[in-house]
């Protein structure tokens, strides 16, 4: 037991070599961003795509800001961003906007009016400020995640059917799997998901156990977990490696980004793949810093779950894991040389 414990301890090493040259690398990257950003912005004259209209200028601005900040004095560590005395007002604002969102939504027969949008924005912002005015993890997490779930509820339940294109098919098939008690519906549809049917089995089983429709089940077992699991992973990762304040920002950004909303309210195999994907990535990151075999087994195990969930997700995660381990090996070698 004692030797096992020793095995799972993180190795501690001193850094040197390329790590000491990082400030100059930062400057170099900033200059590169300015050049590429400016070049890309000019490219808009020849290729009028909206992505080219906004991303190169964003890169340019990031480069300029970075150069400016790198040349200013390093600011002192932030202990608190929001004074504790604001807490009662923030809690009142959060409660008001959270309840306001619900009442405005239900009162308008599940329609998202401008009032619902306004209250949702207010709930997110006051939730973030509450998180920043507190240091206890639960209080930091709960307001932002509960707003994230409520927000998705209002999008998800607006219409008579599941949103999206593929999600309609996946949800119907899950219902048929539940009724037939087999994967025959997937075989009859001549689908490539026949042996990649984790999503359909999960939603079908959940639907049978809870005795609710596949649509409600997919909200509970796919939509809600895709808000909570990646957000908690991001939060715990940043809290351990960087600072609690940054952890709150990371969680907030993931919950509010439009792509995260999109994939959670269109529940399908991709969404479940992304849930397992975030678990795989975090296990891979943890295993880089540890000789503990459990983490490597978990990495492969979660990857196995993705393989049986979604083909494209499996490829993307295999690609990202390879990149992560490759980069880990490169950075580790640099350390051991010095």
């Amino acid at each position, binding site marked *: 037991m004692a030797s096992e414990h020793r095995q799972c301890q993180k190795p501690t090493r001193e850094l040197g070599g390329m790590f000491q040259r990082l400030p100059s*690398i*930062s400057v170099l990257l900033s200059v590169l961003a300015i050049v590429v950003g400016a070049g890309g912005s000019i490219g808009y004259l020849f290729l009028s795509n909206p992505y080219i209209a906004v*991303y190169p200028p964003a890169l340019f601005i990031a480069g300029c800001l970075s150069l400016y900040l790198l040349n200013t004095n390093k600011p002192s560590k932030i202990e608190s961003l929001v004074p504790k005395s604001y807490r009662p007002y923030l809690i009142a604002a959060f409660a008001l906007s959270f309840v306001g969102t619900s009442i405005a939504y239900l009162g308008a027969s599940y329609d998202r009016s401008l009032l619902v949008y306004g209250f949702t924005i207010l709930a997110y912002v006051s939730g973030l400020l509450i998180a920043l005015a507190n240091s206890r993890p639960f209080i930091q997490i709960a307001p932002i995640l509960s707003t994230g779930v409520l927000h998705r509820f209002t999008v998800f339940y607006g219409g008579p059917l599941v949103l999206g294109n593929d999600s309609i098919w996946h949800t119907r098939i899950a219902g048929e799997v539940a009724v037939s008690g087999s994967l025959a519906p997937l075989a009859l549809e001549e689908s490539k998901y*026949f042996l990649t049917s984790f999503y359909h089995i999960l939603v079908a089983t959940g639907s049978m156990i809870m005795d609710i429709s596949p649509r409600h089940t997919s909200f509970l077992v796919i939509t809600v977990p895709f808000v909570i699991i990646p957000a908690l992973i991001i939060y715990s990762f940043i809290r351990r490696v960087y600072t609690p304040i940054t952890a709150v920002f990371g969680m907030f950004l993931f919950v509010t980004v*439009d*792509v995260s*909303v999109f994939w959670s309210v269109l529940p399908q195999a991709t969404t479940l793949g992304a849930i397992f994907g975030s678990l795989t*990535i975090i296990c891979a990151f943890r295993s880089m810093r540890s000789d503990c075999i459990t983490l490597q087994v978990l990495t492969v195990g979660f990857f196995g779950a993705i393989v049986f969930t979604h083909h494209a997700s499996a490829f993307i995660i295999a690609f990202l894991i390879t*990149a992560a381990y490759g980069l880990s090996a490169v950075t580790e070698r640099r350390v051991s040389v010095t």
Partner: protein
Amino acid sequence: MKQRQGLLVVATVWITLLAHWLTIGYFGPSPTDRPDIDLFSFLVLTVVQTLRGLTSIDSQSSFTIPDYISATPSGSASLTPPHLLGNAGLFALLCLGGFVWLSRAETPLSKRLTIILFSMAVISFSVVFGGPLGGFGIIYPLRWLPFVYVIGSILAALGVTVLVQQSTGSWRTVAVALIAVMLVTSMIGTNYGSPDDPLYDDANGAVRYELTDSEFTLVQHIVQYSGETTVIGDGHITVVVERQYKRPALTIQYLADSESITGPREPTLLIDRQYLQSGHAQFILTNNDQTIPMTGSIPENVVNCGPNSVVYDSGDDMIRHRPDGWC
């Protein structure tokens, strides 16, 4: 971690993936009319076809849209900058966080992880943006984003931290609130942020995926009374008919040269919902022998062309019976 262990994990991952792809049939375990091909072989063939397509002159860039059609090619071209401002802001924060923290990270652990995260973000975004730029739409950029944003959110959070560190005293609270309001507002109403019915609906690509009560009643009506008659309509409504109710349905394909709609030469039912003229309907356009998916308004005279009779009318949405199926 010993590098050998990492190598073992990577090897296991790729072997598992390959073994699975070689095992599963692209058209299920026992296709009837379609080829019995495994997923891996299917993908290899698709990649080869894409590469061949890249070398041919017949590309979408030479496609011309007739002046009288108010629509844009589906995909990124159908969006406008306001839909991407939030994501571009996040991208800027992500870059800023990466650049500054590469030199500001204090502990050996945070330095090393910042390098790894930043490099992974660079590689991922190169694939996401580089793929479509190089004509490789097959890599599905949108599918990468939920994964990429798990990493991206961490770096962007570092960027936000760097920014708010610059303000002092009570201004810090104001700065945080301002950044939060700007980010949430720019995300919440976009085509991805509100796929039920995008709040920012200036762009053709801001497609409403939610059916109105009137449209839902129409679909139920068509399912109940159409039998096996082929249904024609815009992209999303036909997806509903086909995937929810297992009825044959075709997306409207408009032939600009002859100002007509293609379809089977047999009686069909055309779903003429009000949404066809909203500027967000999805259809297929053929012009000068080139065909691409479009998002926008479908000309009213097109929907009404040839002999047809209205067999259902809810006031907003109609079903047209077309005895010849095409015009």
